[in-house]
């Protein structure tokens, strides 16, 4: 067994070690080395694509229901609005903040914010109605300091600045936008139900009957490539292709 012995130190060396320890303690009391944020007085800086509270713009909604279909947590329910259109409502009791809804929204009606601190009194309040999604919720801001984490090669650095973060994201355009257009892949299997024509928001699909034959036409210039007709086609014969 190895014996542990006290090192022989001179009085001067002992005094040096004590002085160093006192120095560290003094420094910590003035500038503490903490990695945590003292919420709500301080707030962490969130990136622009942070997945937070979802906002909705009814003007841009094309009623494709894609958000409700794609939601893996089944948090989105479509509710009928007075103008006979269906708009999404989000149940934050179920939402997992994956933001698939925002990614799938072809009209750009849904967008993210940096708001992540919304409190509810009970479960029923967590079902956020469409009206509540148009405007951001009321938040009492107590934060004065913005905390930013920066990782350099050596260590995590914390930068604290005395300013208030802006919580809303001015629309982030998709990184790559591929112009798409709806096309028919099997015209002979079309049953001629006009569903595509009825759902098209941009009026790109038209039909005309002449001599017992109906001609369907997709105007490639006006088609926005939203994919609503592709989803609604009962025979699944429409397809989005590159313009």
């Amino acid at each position, binding site marked *: 067994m190895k014996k542990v012995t006290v090192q022989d130190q001179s009085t001067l060396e002992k005094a040096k070690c004590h002085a160093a320890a006192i120095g560290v303690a003094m420094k910590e009391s003035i500038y503490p080395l903490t990695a945590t944020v003292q919420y709500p007085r301080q707030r962490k800086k969130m990136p622009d694509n942070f997945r937070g509270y979802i906002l909705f713009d009814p003007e841009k909604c094309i009623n494709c229901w894609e958000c409700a279909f794609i939601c893996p947590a089944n948090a989105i329910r479509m509710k009928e609005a007075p103008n006979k259109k269906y708009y999404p409502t989000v149940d934050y009791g179920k939402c997992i903040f994956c933001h698939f809804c925002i990614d799938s929204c072809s009209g750009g009606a849904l967008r993210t914010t940096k708001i992540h601190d919304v409190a509810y009194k009970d479960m029923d309040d967590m079902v956020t109605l469409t009206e509540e999604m148009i405007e951001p919720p009321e938040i009492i801001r107590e934060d004065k300091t913005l905390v930013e984490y920066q990782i350099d090669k050596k260590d995590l650095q914390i930068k604290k600045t005395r300013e208030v973060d802006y919580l809303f994201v001015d629309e982030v355009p998709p990184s790559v936008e591929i112009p798409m*257009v709806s*096309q*028919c*892949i*099997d*015209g*002979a*299997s*079309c*049953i*001629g*139900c*006009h*569903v595509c024509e009825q759902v098209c928001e941009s009026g790109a699909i038209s039909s005309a*009957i002449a001599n*017992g*034959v*109906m*001609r*369907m*036409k*997709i*105007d*490639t210039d006006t088609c926005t490539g939203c994919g609503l007709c592709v989803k609604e086609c*009962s*025979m*699944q*014969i429409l*397809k989005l*292709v590159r313009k």
Partner: protein
Amino acid sequence: MATETESEWEIKVPDKPLKDKVYFENLKSVVIDTEMCSRCLTCAAVCPGGITVVNNKVDFPDYETKCFDCGACVRVCPRFKYEPKSGLGDYIEFTAGRSKRFAGQDGAMVTELLVSAIEMGMIDRALFAGRDEKWATEMFHVRDSEQLAITTLGGTKYTFADVLPELKKAVKFTKSGVGIVGTPCIVSGVRKLQQEYPIFREKVKLVVGLFCTENFHYDEISSFLKAKGVDFSKLVKTDIIKGKFISTMTDGKVKFKVTEAEDIVASGCNVCTDFTALESDASCGSVGSANGFSTVVVRTEAAKKVIAFIRAKGYADFDEGDPAQLGFLIGHKQKRAENIKK
């Protein structure tokens, strides 16, 4: 599926006997209200609106507002311009078989044909009509022979099954092809779908028909059998042999003449003359072969390939079939041609 895309295409617009009415109303007046409807549900398979079954009849609630007036239902309805078919039809081979792998009504050759087709790679899914404990039919997508451990998939159910609405889903998901099994009316419906819409022509590869004299609506036959003393929880098998309806239960049998159930035969069956599913790839049934064997009438090259595959693998025993035995029932159904005129 065609790979080229188009931005303009043409659609046939079918004729309307009632000019001012929507197509569903035309279908209703020609087929449903005249009791010609066979409840094959071909219309429901293509309808983008909501053709469904209400009180054992094909119906479309709120068709005035919800019908798209596309004419798909009258294009595919086998009874809208009814051309009754009868007899045994053309065939390549008339044989009888007994599967070594599966259990069914007789020789389980329907199951064998479809599963062999999956194993050959001809199709990647087959639609089977299964049943629940109360003998109501439900559809199954079979993609592997192991799924046939569900024993209720084989065996005859004397009630309608919603095969064709399910076929549309199957066509959507399939990669190589779909196989289905159905009564002669369902087979005619599939052929009509294939004739009108190429998507079905490409995807439906194997259609097995069943010998069929008549069919019953579920609620009617179930209350009829209950009155006869059949306990559904113990029921193992239902069968019609030599004009007798035999319900085999775990503790005995209930027998009665089929003619007793004449009143509850579905109305569409009264105008059906097709006993052997003439338009199928292969027809199967118990009549025309020895006990424990299924008669197989091979009609097309597709079915011939599957039978050759079964022979090569030795999955089934084969026996001689006797086409003459079918004569009585074919004649019995031919007589119904008179009902069409009425």
